[in-house]
């Protein structure tokens, strides 16, 4: 089974200073699948996501125990190049973080630091990424304007486009549709559907219907632990644990 998973963790603990945010996380994430993380605010979903591309290392005073494997290699091994990991494992942050550059330069950013200089190629990939992220029509006439002038929902889709442009193998999306209207949300969900042909996708969402619609596997997090993980259909129709059921049905307390 382990051989089939794209990502798996073994006994993962994570600490912010002295306080432990993740407890003994063991999970397998299959390729060409959408895995959804659900759970109440502060239960460690974002923290766990950041363990998968080593972004937690940018936070001072954190510590990790246990192992994270991608394609069978421990990504925390000393021989591993963290830049390579982050190139392969893209991330859309919970808080949209457009750079104060033009819309075009935002999406081209990852390509340029990767060494791509060819103008036509850049323009082509940027356009495709913006189309995929369902924002092309809104920005195609203002690509040279600052991304800071976009609305919250547009910024969110821009950040999705920026992550798509570098074509990672794994895409970690932390509430990618939290600021979107129903139409844009639907387009992002369709995008996720298409993307799973090529990528492995992990999505954090507070929207139960969304988790049910887009994901194949759902994991329920609570107080830094994975309480239950199963096929999305099973989780939403006949969860094994009462805690999970209470959360899904909104009777959580």
């Amino acid at each position, binding site marked *: 089974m382990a051989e089939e998973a794209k990502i798996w963790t073994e006994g993962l603990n994570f600490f912010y200073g002295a306080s432990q945010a993740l407890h003994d996380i063991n999970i397998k994430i299959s390729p060409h699948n959408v895995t959804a993380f659900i759970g109440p605010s502060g239960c460690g979903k974002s923290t766990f996501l950041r363990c998968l591309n080593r972004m937690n290392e*940018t936070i*001072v005073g954190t510590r990790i125990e246990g192992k994270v494997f991608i394609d069978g290699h421990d990504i925390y091994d000393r021989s591993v190049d963290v830049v390579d990991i*982050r190139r392969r494992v893209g991330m859309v*942050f919970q808080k949209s*973080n457009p*750079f104060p550059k033009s819309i075009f330069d935002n999406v081209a950013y*990852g390509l340029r*630091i990767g060494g791509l200089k060819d103008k036509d190629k850049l323009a082509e990939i940027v356009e495709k990424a913006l189309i995929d992220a369902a924002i092309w029509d809104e920005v195609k006439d203002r690509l040279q304007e*600052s991304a800071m002038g976009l609305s919250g929902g547009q910024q969110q889709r821009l950040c999705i486009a920026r*992550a798509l442009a570098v074509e990672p193998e794994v895409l970690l999306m932390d509430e990618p549709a939290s600021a979107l209207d129903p139409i844009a949300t639907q387009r992002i969900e369709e995008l996720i559907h298409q993307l799973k042909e090529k990528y492995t996708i992990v999505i954090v969402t507070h929207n139960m219907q969304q988790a049910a619609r887009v994901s194949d596997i759902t994991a329920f997090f609570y107080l830094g632990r994975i309480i239950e993980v199963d096929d999305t259909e099973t989780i939403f129709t006949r969860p094994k644990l009462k805690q999970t059921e209470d959360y899904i049905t909104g009777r959580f307390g």
Partner: protein
Amino acid sequence: MKKDTVETLGFNLFRLGSVLVVLILGFILFDIFYKGIGAISWEFLTAEPRMGMTEGGIFPAIVGTVYVTVITVLFAVPLGMFAAIYLNEYAPHGPLTRVIRLSIRNLSGVPSIVYGLFGVAIFVRTLHLGASVLSAGLTLGLLTLPWTITASEEALKTVPKSYRDGALALGATKWQAIRTNVLPYAVPGMLTGTILGLARAAGETAPILFTGAAFFLPFLPDSPFSQFMALPYHLYVLVTQHHDVGKVMPLAYGTALVLIALVVGLNLVAVIIRYHFRKKRG
């Protein structure tokens, strides 16, 4: 007392404070301008002092100050910026870094005469640079370094972490993230802080007193190893060392006016840079 009475009282106290400060500063500037403007002429700006400094101009002092400031810039600006980048971005978060940072802050409070003596000991004597433009420029560079480093670090801190993180998550190396997504937004702040430090250095007398400034030179410095005349020192000489103070007083005020114009000019450049980049960043 009622709450808004207290508030009004406090507000008026603050207002009184700021009005007083502006008034005093305005009075000093007006006094210097009023007494100095009569001395300003084309000749005053372009000729050397004559007749035991009772006539002629201050051209060598202007050139000397500009020359020494250029050396200060070349030395202190890159070094200060590199140090700030290291401290803010790379240095481990430990007690050692904290001690270094604290020391740098404290250095900005050290009296300038101490820098002067240090400059004599290190640059003039130990490194055999002699009393020269170079020694004085390096000494003033040391004086401005704490300011440059502190201002640059503050400027780096104003760049949100999300810019760094966004770049790193796209596979940027740490230096790539800093170079393309942090420095462009920090450099204006770094420059303005640095220029303010330079403006202070350009007006200093004590650090150049023993490291290269000359009482009187009939020629301009022709290499970094020459001695030089400088505006602040020239002013000091005119006011306190001259046998005929009454006669040179107008010249002293003229010199002070030029020096202030230079410092205000540098500050203006800082304001313009800040304004320009703020507009560009939107």
